[in-house]
């Protein structure tokens, strides 16, 4: 039933990953950055599943890895957003370029 060649999926996830990085680098809003990080993790997941489907000997590993990645991503998002909330409460802003005290 599998019709797609592996390289197509890899290229697709690469593009998705590149878009994620672009978002992380460029978004002005911190939550925007977090969202793009989620996107990047998702791209990685696709790769995991694709490889476990196409190449790996024990099919479950890829999926379990993906499962763990999703769990970790969820925790990261949770903690990240908690920090953003705390930051917002203190500094009343979530724009990345306004949060720049940690410099020389």
């Amino acid at each position, binding site marked *: 039933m*599998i*019709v*797609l060649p592996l*390289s197509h*999926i890899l*290229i*697709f996830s*690469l*593009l*998705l990953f*590149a*878009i*994620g*990085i*672009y*978002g992380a*680098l*460029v*978004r*002005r*809003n911190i*939550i*925007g950055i*977090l*969202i*793009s990080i*989620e*996107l990047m993790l*998702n791209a990685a*997941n*696709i790769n995991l*599943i694709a490889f476990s*489907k*196409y*190449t*790996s*000997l*024990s*099919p*479950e590993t890829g*999926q*379990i890895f*993906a499962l763990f990645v*999703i*769990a970790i*991503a*969820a*925790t*990261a998002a*949770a*903690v990240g*957003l*908690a920090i*953003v*909330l*705390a930051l*917002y*409460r203190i500094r009343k802003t*979530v724009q*990345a370029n306004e949060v720049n005290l940690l410099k020389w």
Partner: protein
Amino acid sequence: MPILEIAVKFGTYAVMAGILIFALGVVTLRNLFHCALCLAAALIGTAVIYVVLQAEYLAAIQILLYAGAVVTLIIFAIMLTEHLAETTIRQNNSQSPLAITGLLGLVALLTVLILRTPWPVTQTALKAKVSVMGLGKALMGTYAFPFEVISIILIAALIGTVVIAKKDDPEERL
């Protein structure tokens, strides 16, 4: 049934394109709420991709966890931090040209890599069916330890977020 396969192939390509478009939306849209929604759409799209890659269980998990929990969390955060009627300001900052060039370089580099390296695609892997039973056994068997560790991490994150995000009103201090 070649036609169905062709249909599925085109379907997946279409879904991939859709995901990419939504991803671009996530990155470039000014209104943060729209980005979150595009993210949700993108995530559901990847769930569809998982289904195509015969990983239904993971697709369900993806929808349940990612689209359901993480996106809701993000939307909660957006609601709490965005002013309701705020005029949206230009989103990207000065780094975009440099970032774009870097990205194009990366994409070019890796696509060449992907196309050139002979991936060890094995027929047996293609045939293998992954059942939920198998996943359950693997999770409980070989990956039992990571499973426990993940639970601990989740709890820690849970407590962490509560502590960080809690409004520290003085009289209630521990």
